[in-house]
């Protein structure tokens, strides 16, 4: 979760595994949107001497659809190259790393950023950033004593107006991973489970793990179809569809004679992520790899799993007597289709819409005319905060609780007022509150990565 190792094939390819995608109007720069895509799930901070890095053989993408057809109008792509200063040492660094060009840092990574805008007469990628430095991994107080300064030096402002960062951060996603995959256990309510045990405090195993983050902060007017920063939240032009993806070339040659590796052929998508947990929880095991390989514009093939989610059938079984109304709900889940596949149309939630049309597609949908909340709720729209998930997704949004409540029926009355949601649907919680330092108030908003020296594995 939210898409960490969520499908059979991508679970074997962590550097290409898109674990989370976030998109929100930047709270400190509200004329911009911040988009974050994370990769490499469950990084143990002490994982040296070959510390984690992006794949030089992976093409990372951020897609923005601004006209509702679930096809990208703007694409940012990131390609990495690794430089080894001294091949005759086993060490990542041979002394303290004091700057991004410190000669003590042996294995550095750089990246190029391209932007493609469509439709166009002939849409070619334009290189908007070249040989940009990533920071090192956070190793420990001897190797990276002033990590915050190193990370800040790796925040690049591009001539085209975007701000970009690519490097290690702590994983902002929080979930009681061990419980949820133990037959849908929710520790605060596990006394009500089919196989009960005493209620207990939740555990967040991601709290001490890192990820690799690609973050961009982009002027809103650079993303909308008319080149303006909209102020009318009811306008369809105010809504952007956003998702991330990673691709590999179709063929890889591992040549035993030459000790060489070559990627050949078209870039082929192996991972993508729009809404959190879509592939993880909605798509069945036998279809997950296919989902990762297809674009959002093909998601009508997966709509049946949104209309009739497996988890909604499981909850009344796993928690006997707790969800009696959900147990009787057999109609298609138009509420979940709206939240995950079309956006919420006008008139459903007063003062809010993020509808992109009838094309069924898993994308984050962000209404950029809605300003950042002054008092945000981690429950987003369910908490009365229209600036939060499913209006895009902020780093601190409690998407697991929000989606569990929605699947449990809490949002079904929005489309069927005669339905009464079970009382439990509105009190389900994963029971976690991220610690201070998990996030920061400025770009790239995810907190500094945990260092390998002081973080227990």
């Amino acid at each position, binding site marked *: 979760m939210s898409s960490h190792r969520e499908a059979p094939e991508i679970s074997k390819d962590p550097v290409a595994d898109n674990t989370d995608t976030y998109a929100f109007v930047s709270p400190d720069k509200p004329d911009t949107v911040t988009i974050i895509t994370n990769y490499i799930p469950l990084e143990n901070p002490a994982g040296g001497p070959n510390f984690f890095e992006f794949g030089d053989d992976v093409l990372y993408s951020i897609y923005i659809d601004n006209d509702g057809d679930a096809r990208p109008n703007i694409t940012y792509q990131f390609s990495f190259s690794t430089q080894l200063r001294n091949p005759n040492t086993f060490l990542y660094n041979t002394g303290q790393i004091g700057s991004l060009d410190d000669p003590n840092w042996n294995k550095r990574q750089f990246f190029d950023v391209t932007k493609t805008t469509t439709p166009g007469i002939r849409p070619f990628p334009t290189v908007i950033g070249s040989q940009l430095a990533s920071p090192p991994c956070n190793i420990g107080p001897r190797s990276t004593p002033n990590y915050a300064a190193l990370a800040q030096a790796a925040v690049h402002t591009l001539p085209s107006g975007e701000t970009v960062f690519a490097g290690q951060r702590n994983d902002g996603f929080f979930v009681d991973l061990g419980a949820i995959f133990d037959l849908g256990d929710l520790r605060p309510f596990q006394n009500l489970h089919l196989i009960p045990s005493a209620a207990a405090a939740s555990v967040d195993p991601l709290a001490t793990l890192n990820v690799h983050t690609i973050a961009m902060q982009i002027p809103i007017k650079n993303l909308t179809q008319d080149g303006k920063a909209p102020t009318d939240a009811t306008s369809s032009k105010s809504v952007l569809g956003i998702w991330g993806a990673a691709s590999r*070339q*179709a*063929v890889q*040659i591992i040549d035993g004679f*030459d000790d060489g590796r*070559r990627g*050949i*052929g*078209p870039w082929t998508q192996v991972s993508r992520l729009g809404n959190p947990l879509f592939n993880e929880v909605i798509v069945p095991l036998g279809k997950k790899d296919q989902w990762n390989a297809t674009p959002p514009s093909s998601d009508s093939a997966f709509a049946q799993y949104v209309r009739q989610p497996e988890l909604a059938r499981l909850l009344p079984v796993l928690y006997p007597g707790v969800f009696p109304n959900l147990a009787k709900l057999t109609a298609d889940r138009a509420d979940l289709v709206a939240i995950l596949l079309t956006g919420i149309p006008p008139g459903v939630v007063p003062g809010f819409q993020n509808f992109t049309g009838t094309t069924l597609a898993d994308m984050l949908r962000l209404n950029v005319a809605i300003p950042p909340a002054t008092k945000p709720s981690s429950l987003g729209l369910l908490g009365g905060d229209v600036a939060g998930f499913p209006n895009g997704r902020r780093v601190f949004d409690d998407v697991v609780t929000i989606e569990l409540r929605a699947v449990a029926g809490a949002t079904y009355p929005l489309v069927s007022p005669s339905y009464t949601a079970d009382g439990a649907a509105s009190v389900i919680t994963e029971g976690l509150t991220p610690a201070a330092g998990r996030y920061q108030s400025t770009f790239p908003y995810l907190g500094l990565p945990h260092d390998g020296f002081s973080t227990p594995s």
Partner: protein
Amino acid sequence: MEPVDRRRFLKSAGVAAGAAAVVGAPGIARAATEGDAEVVDAPGALAKQPVVVYVRDAARGEVTVMHGEHATTYRDRGLVRRLLKAARVTESDARA
């Protein structure tokens, strides 16, 4: 990307041997363009941009050629026969 025209493709594929999926390098291709494929015991260095050819569907005579970031699928039953022979497999082994 350098274009992969049919003539160059056939030259590359003509010497490629050993499997239904074949790696060819244009420079080597000029050494032998006719006759049976010969096994190479000590291959040269792997080209920076190898050409990859694979039999996609033997029954349909389809081969896909990859170079750089591009792929093109051709129908060339003669080439498919040669590749199958080099791979020592039958058409039924390489059906879709």
